[in-house]
C-alpha cells in the first residue's frame, strides 16, 4: 500500500525536475552566464538575452527583474527606440512585473537588495517598482516590509527605507505620515533618526505637532522621556523643511529660553527667510543676563 503512493510521488518529482530543467529559459541562462563572465559589454549583451527571455516566456519573474536591473540607457544611441525602453520608468515596470510573478521573493529583493545598489539608476528603478506596488498591488505587505527595513539593525536598510518612505510620503502623506509617527516610538535610536529625516523630506504639515513634541522633550524630567539631541536637532531641521505653519513653531522654540535647540531653530528660520523670524530674533538681542539681581522679600 505504501509503495503504491511512493512510486507516483517519485515519478512526479523526477518529471517536475526534468520539466524544470527543460523550461529553464535558454536566453535567461545565457544572459546570466554572460553577467558572470568577464566578456566585453557583458551587461549590454545580457540585457538583449533577458529581452529575448521575456519574449519567449512572458511571465518569467527573474528575466523581468534582471532586465530591469541591467538594462541601461547608456547602451543605446540618443533617439533610438531601445533607449526609451531603458528609462527608469520602464526598468521599474519590469521590476514590478518580476514582483507580480513572484510577490514574496521580489518584494524582499527590491527592499533589501536592489535599493542598496551603487547605481543610482538601479535605486530609482527599484523605487519606481515599489511605487507601483503601493498603487497597484499589496500596499499593506509593502509597508510592512519597509517598516521592517527601517527598524533593521543594518544602517543601509534603514537609510533606504527612509528614502522610499519619504518618496511615497510626498505622494501619499495621509498614509505614510501616521505610519512614520508611530515609528517614533521605536526603541532603536537610529530608526527614530531616520523617521524624523523622512518626515522632514516629506514636508507635510500634519507632522508638525509630533516633531514639536520631539524637540521639546529635552526638558522632560525623566531621562527616558528625553529624546537624543541629534534627533531633536533633526526634528528642528525637519520643521524648517516643512515651512508654512511650522514657522510659528520654530519661533516658539527660539522664544523658549530653556531650549537647547534655539540656535538650530534660528538657523532653520534663516534658511526659510521668513519675515516672521525677524521680531523674535531681535527680542533675543534684548535678553538680560550676566548680572546680579538682589531680590528683597
Amino acid at each position, binding site marked *: 500500500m505504501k509503495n503504491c503512493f511512493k512510486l507516483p510521488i517519485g515519478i512526479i518529482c523526477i518529471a517536475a525536475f526534468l520539466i524544470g530543467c527543460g523550461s529553464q529559459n535558454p536566453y535567461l541562462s545565457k544572459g546570466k552566464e554572460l553577467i558572470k563572465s568577464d566578456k566585453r559589454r557583458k551587461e549590454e549583451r545580457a540585457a538583449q538575452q533577458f529581452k529575448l527571455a521575456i519574449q519567449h516566456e512572458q511571465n518569467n519573474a527573474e528575466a523581468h527583474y534582471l532586465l530591469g536591473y541591467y538594462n541601461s540607457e547608456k547602451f543605446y544611441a540618443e533617439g533610438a527606440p531601445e533607449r526609451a525602453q531603458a528609462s527608469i520608468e520602464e526598468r521599474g515596470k519590469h521590476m514590478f512585473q518580476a514582483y507580480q510573478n513572484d510577490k514574496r521573493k521580489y518584494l524582499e529583493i527590491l527592499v533589501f537588495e536592489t535599493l542598496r545598489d551603487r547605481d543610482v539608476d538601479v535605486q530609482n528603478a527599484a523605487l519606481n517598482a515599489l511605487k507601483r506596488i503601493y498603487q497597484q498591488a499589496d500596499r499593506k505587505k509593502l509597508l510592512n516590509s519597509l517598516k521592517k527595513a527601517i527598524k533593521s539593525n543594518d544602517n543601509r536598510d534603514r537609510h533606504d527605507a527612509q528614502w522610499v518612505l519619504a518618496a511615497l510620503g510626498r505622494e501619499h502623506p495621509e498614509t505614510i505620515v501616521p505610519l512614520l509617527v508611530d515609528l517614533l516610538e521605536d526603541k532603536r535610536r537610529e530608526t527614530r533618526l531616520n523617521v524624523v529625516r523622512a518626515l522632514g523630506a516629506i514636508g507635510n504639515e500634519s507632522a508638525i505637532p509630533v516633531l514639536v513634541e520631539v524637540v521639546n522633550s529635552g526638558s522632560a524630567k525623566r531621562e527616558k522621556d528625553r529624546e537624543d539631541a541629534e534627533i531633536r536637532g533633526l526634528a528642528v531641521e525637519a520643521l524648517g523643511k516643512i515651512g508654512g505653519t511650522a514657522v510659528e513653531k520654530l519661533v516658539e522654540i527660539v522664544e523658549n*529660553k530653556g531650549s*537647547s535647540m534655539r540656535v538650530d531653530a534660528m538657523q532653520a*528660520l534663516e534658511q526659510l527667510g*521668513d519675515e516672521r523670524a525677524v521680531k523674535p530674533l531681535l527680542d533675543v538681542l534684548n535678553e*538680560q543676563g550676566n548680572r546680579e539681581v538682589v531680590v*528683597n522679600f
Partner: protein
Amino acid sequence: MIWKIKLSFLLIVAVLCAIGCSDNRYYDEQLQMELQQLDSDLDNRWSTTGVVIIDVKPNGPAGQGDLEKGELVSYVIGERPIRSTGDYKQAAKKALEDDNNFIVKLTDGREIRLAVRKRGDKVGLEVDESRVSKVTPGSPADTGNIKVGDTIESIIDERNVRTLKDYKEALKEFTKYDSKVTFRTIELIGIKIASVNALGNLGDVRSVQPLTMILDSEGSTLRQPAAEALDRLVALSQLNTLFQQFQQANVDELPADQLDSRQRQSAEILGLLTSDLENNLVTLNDPFGTQFRHRSEALYEKITDGQMVELARKYIKRDVEPNQEIRRACISILGHLRPTSAIEDLVAVMEDSMEVPGIRFKAGLALSQIGKDSVDALIAAFDRGDASIKDIAASALGNIGGNKARNTLINALNTIDNPTIKLTLADAVAKVGRAPSIEALRRQKEALPEGSGLRTFLDELQVLLFNVESKYQAHLNSENISVELRQEFRDNKISLSQSAIISVQKKDSEWWIDDKDNQRVYIVRKESRKVEGKLNIYEPLETQSISYSAAN
C-alpha cells in the same frame, strides 16, 4: 476590602508621581515668579546650567527686584549674618554641602573666599560669637589671611543651580535667615551671536538699527558679529535693483552674470544661483523670494541714507577700532556703497603701514570699487608711497582702468626698477588692456633679458583687448567666425584673415581664435567676475606658445 484600599492608594501614588514627574515648571509663591528647567543637554551644548525664568509677576518681590522674564538663573546667592558660634558652624556646614567653598565677609569690609580641597576638609577657623578665636596654620583661612581677632559679619554662600530641585533647596535655606537673596544670571552669548548672524542674512530693514546700535556700543562681544551682519545686509541691499528687475517678471532678459563676486555671494545666501535662470525663477517665486522683493526696497533706502557710510568710515580707523575683523567688515561695506566721501579715509588705511596687509589691500579694492572718482587719489598715493603702497595702488588702478590710470602705470613701468612692483604694474597694465597696453608691454618685454623672472611672467600675460555681447557665444561654440563677429574685431581695429579658425577650449566659457596669416592668437573668455556677462577678448603677449599648443 483592605486589598482594595491598598490598590487605590497605590493608584493615587502613581498618579501623583506622574504629575510630579512630568512637571518641569515651578511657581515660586514667595518671590512670585515661574521657573522652568533647562533642556538637559543645554549643559553639553552651551556649557550652561541653570533654570530659566518664564514669568514674573510685576508687583511681586522678583518683579520689584528687576528680574526679567527669560533670564537664566545660574547661581542663587545668600548671605547669613553671624552672631553666634552656632551661626557660624551651621552656616559653614551648609555652605560646604553643595560645593567646596564660601565667602567670609569681615567687618573691616574684606571678603575672603575659602575653598577646601575635598568634602569634609576644614577651612581652619574657630569662632567665638562672631570673633575669630583660632586660625589653623596652613589652612585655607590662614592662606586667606584671616587673623585671630577679626570679626565675621556674614557668610556668603553661592549655590550653583542646575535643576529646579537645587533652586528650591537654595531658596528654602536662604530665606530662613535673611530677607534678601541675590540671583546671578548668565548671558547666552552663543544664542545672541546666532541671532545676529541670522538677522544679517534675513535682509530685513528692522535689523539695521539694532545692529548699528550694537556696533556703536562699547565692549560688547557682539560687535564683531554685528559688523559682519551689517556687511551682509549692505550686500543684500545692493541686490535691490536686481530684485526690482526680477519683479518686473522678465527674468529671462536679466543678464545672468550681472553681479560682482560679493553680490554673487549674497545671491547664494538668498539661494539664487545667478547662472541658472530657471532655478532663480523658482526661488523667486517661493515665499522667501516674494517676501524679499517686497522688503528689499525698504532695506535699500535705509542702508543708503548716509548713516551707514558714516558708521563704516568711523570704524575703519585703526585708532578708533582695535578689532581688525570689524575694520575689515566696514571696508567691505564701503566697497559696496561706493561713497566718494570715503576715498580719503580708504587711502589713509591703504597707506597705514601698521595696518594688517590684507586690510590695506581690501581698502585698495574698495577704492577700485568706487571707481573713476578715486583714480586721482590713487595716483597721488602711488607717487608718494613706498613699495607696499605702490603695489596696492597699482593693482587698484589696473582694476579701474581708463587712459589716465594706464598712463600712470605705463610711465611707472618704464621708470621703476623694483621687480615686485614691476610685476604688479605689468599685470595692472594688462588688465586695463587695449592696444596701447599691448605695445607698452611688448616694449618692456623686448628690453628684458631672456629667462628673467619678469620676462617669463610677461610671456604668459594676456592683455584684455575689448569685449563683445554674450550673444556671440553660439557663434563661437559652432567654431564659425560669423560676419558680425568679424565686424566686432574690425571695429576694434583688428582684422581677422579669412583663414582664422576658432577652437572651443571649454564649451560656453573659453575659445581660441588662431589667425595664422597675421600670426596672432586671441583668447575669448566668459568671466562672470568681469563686466556684465560679456565675452572678453584677450591677446597673449607671446603668441608663439599659445599658437603651438592650439595646433595640438
